[in-house]
C-alpha cells in the first residue's frame, strides 16, 4: 500500500448515539439513554485503535455507529476525508465497501442457512458489480488467506468450530477489500488457544494488506497484543486516549489505573508490585446521569469539583488525552 503512515484514515468527531427509553410505563416521559456521548478519536492508516471499557460503556455502540449499523444523532465520522453520517442509497452502498465489520459471536454472526462460500459472497453480490467467475476467484483466494481449506466452501456454519467460524467472518469482512475493519470483540467468544490463532491471523492480514483496525475489546491482554493506541470508555465517554505504551506505563485516569491493576499477570514480581485497585459501587443510572464526572461516585480520589462539573477530555502532552480534573494532582498520584 502506498499510503503514508501516520495520516488519519478515520476521524470521529463528537459522535453521539442515544436511545429513547420509556420511564414509568404507560404514558411516562420519554427519556434518552446516551450510549455514546461526545466521543472523538482518530485512527491512522495501517494502525489499530482499541476501544476498551466494561459492558455497557458504549464501545460496541460507537463501533456500530461508525459502520452505519446504528444511527448516530450527532457528530461526524470521516473516512478518508468523506463524511459517512448522512450518506444514503448508492453513496452509502459505496461507503460500505470501505468499512467492514467482524462480529463478536461467531455462532450468531453467520446465517445458518447459507453455505460458507455464500456467506463470503454476500458482500460481493450486494456491494460490487463483479461477475460470478470473479466472485468465485475472490472467494477461493479469501479462503486460502484466512486459513480455510477450499473443500470447506460447501459446508454450513454448524459444521465448523468456533475459530473456523470466525475465520469465515474475517473472510467476509475482507471480501470487498475495505480500508477499515471494525473488530467487535472478535475473540471474546473463543477459547484462549484459538484466540491467539485468530489474533495472529488478524495481525498478519494487517501487515499483508495494510488494513486499519478499530478494535473493540474488554480484554486488556488482547489489546496489548494488538494495538497501537487505546481509548478507554466509561459510561459512553472516552476517559483516556493515548498510545499503547503511555497507557500501560503511565495511566493517568483513575478508572484506567483500576482497569490495568485488574489484568492478571503470571509474573510473580509484577504481581507483588501491583496492588489491585478495587472500585466500589456500581456505575450510575445511564438515563439520569449525575452532573459531574461520571466516575465520581466510584472514584477513590473524587472531590467536590468532580461531583459538580464534567471534566473535558484534554491533552496532557504527546497526545495523551485524559478526562479528569485531578490529573497532575498529587491525590491521583497516590492511587
Amino acid at each position: 500500500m502506498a499510503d503514508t503512515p501516520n495520516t488519519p484514515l478515520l476521524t470521529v468527531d463528537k459522535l453521539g448515539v442515544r436511545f429513547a427509553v420509556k420511564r414509568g410505563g404507560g404514558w411516562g416521559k420519554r427519556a434518552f439513554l446516551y450510549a455514546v456521548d461526545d466521543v472523538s478519536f482518530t485512527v491512522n492508516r495501517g494502525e489499530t485503535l482499541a476501544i476498551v471499557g466494561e459492558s455497557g460503556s458504549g464501545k460496541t455502540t460507537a463501533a456500530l455507529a461508525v459502520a452505519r449499523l446504528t444511527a448516530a444523532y450527532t457528530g461526524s465520522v470521516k473516512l478518508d476525508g468523506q463524511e459517512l453520517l448522512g450518506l444514503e442509497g448508492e453513496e452509502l452502498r459505496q461507503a460500505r465497501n470501505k468499512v467492514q465489520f467482524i462480529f463478536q459471536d461467531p455462532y450468531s454472526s453467520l446465517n445458518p442457512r447459507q453455505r460458507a462460500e455464500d456467506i463470503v459472497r454476500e458482500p460481493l453480490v450486494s456491494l460490487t458489480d463483479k461477475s460470478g467467475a470473479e466472485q468465485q476467484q475472490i472467494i477461493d483466494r479469501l479462503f486460502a488467506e484466512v486459513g480455510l481449506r477450499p473443500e470447506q466452501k460447501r459446508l454450513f456454519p454448524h459444521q465448523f468450530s468456533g475459530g473456523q467460524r470466525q475465520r469465515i467472518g474475517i473472510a467476509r469482512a475482507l471480501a470487498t477489500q475495505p480500508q477499515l475493519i471494525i473488530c467487535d470483540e472478535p475473540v471474546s467468544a473463543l477459547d484462549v488457544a484459538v484466540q491467539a490463532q485468530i489474533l495472529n491471523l488478524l495481525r498478519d492480514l494487517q501487515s499483508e494488506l495494510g488494513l486499519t483496525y478499530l478494535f473493540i475489546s474488554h480484554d486488556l491482554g488482547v489489546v496489548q497484543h494488538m494495538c497501537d493506541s487505546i481509548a478507554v470508555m466509561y459510561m459512553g465517554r472516552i476517559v483516556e486516549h493515548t498510545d499503547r505504551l503511555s497507557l500501560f506505563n503511565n495511566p493517568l485516569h483513575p478508572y484506567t489505573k483500576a482497569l490495568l491493576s485488574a489484568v492478571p499477570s503470571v509474573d510473580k514480581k509484577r504481581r507483588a508490585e501491583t496492588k489491585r485497585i478495587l472500585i466500589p459501587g456500581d456505575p450510575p443510572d445511564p438515563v439520569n446521569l449525575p452532573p459531574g464526572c461520571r466516575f465520581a461516585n466510584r472514584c477513590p480520589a473524587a472531590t467536590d469539583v468532580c461531583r459538580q462539573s464534567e471534566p473535558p477530555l484534554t491533552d496532557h502532552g504527546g497526545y495523551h488525552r485524559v478526562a479528569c480534573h485531578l490529573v497532575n494532582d498529587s491525590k491521583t498520584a497516590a492511587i
Partner: protein
Amino acid sequence: MSQQPPPIEEQIEQARSPLSEAWEMFRRNHAAVAALVVLGLIVIGAIIGPFLYPTDPFEMVWAPFSPPGAEGFLLGTDYLGRDLMAMIINGARVSLIIGLAAAVVSIFIGVTIGALAGFYRGILEEILMRITEFFQVLPTLLFSMVIVALFGASLPMITLAIGIVSWTAVARITRAEFLRIRELEYVMASRASGVQNMKLMFRVILPNALPPIIVQSALMVGSAILFEAGLSFLGLTDPNVVSWGQIIGSNRQYILDASYTVTIPGLAIFVTVLAISLVGDGLNDALNPKLRSR
C-alpha cells in the same frame, strides 16, 4: 483436540440443507409418519377417486336411507337417495382445496403483516398490530358468516372469508420471529454487506423464521377444513358442490333415523384433521432445533 474430525468427503456428504435434516428428525416421530401416510392416501383419493368411482354425487341412485353395505352401496344413501360414497370422495376434494387455499390466504396476509411490523418496528408496527388485534377480537365464525352472506356463497368467497378471519396467529408468530432474528448478528452482518431491506426481510430473515410458521400453517389447514365444515353445516356453502360439512348439514334432521349419514362424513373430517395435526406436530419436532440430536 481429543476427537478427530471426520474426513472432509464425509463432512461435505453431511452438508445437507437444513430441510433434509428436518426430514431425518420427522422420520423418528412414528405417529407423524403414519399420519403423513394417511394424509397422502386421502389426498390421492381426493384426486383420483372421482375417476375410479364415477357416480355423480348429486344423482339419486337408490331409495333414501339405505344403510351402508346394503344394495351394493358401500356407505349407503342419504335422505335424497344419493350415494354417500360418491359424496365423501367428491367432498374430500372440496374440503382439502378450501383448507389449503384458506391456509395460503392467511399465511400470505399474516406473513406480510407480521414481517413488516417486526422488521420496521415503530409506528408501522403499532398500526399493524392494532389491526391484528382488531381481527383477533372479532368472533371469527360470525365474521366469516357475514362475509359469505354479503358476498355470496361461492367457493372462492368462502376460502377468502376463512383466510381473512384466521391470519392473526400467523402475523403474531411472524412478527415475534422477526423481532428475535432482526437483532441477531448475521442480520447485522448482511446489513453491513449492503443487503437491501426487501432482500433482508424475505431472503435473510424469513427463511430463518419459517419453522414456526410452517408448523402453524399445517395446523391451519386442519382448522380451515373444520371452519368450512362449520359454515356448510349452517348452510353457508355453494349448493353446486359437495363438501363434508355440507353432507352433515343437509342430513342433520335425520340424525336419529339414519345416524350414519352424519357420522361417516364426520369421521372423514375427524381423520383428516387429526392426520394434519399430527403431521404439524411432527413438523414442530423436526424444525425445532432445541429438540435436535436427542
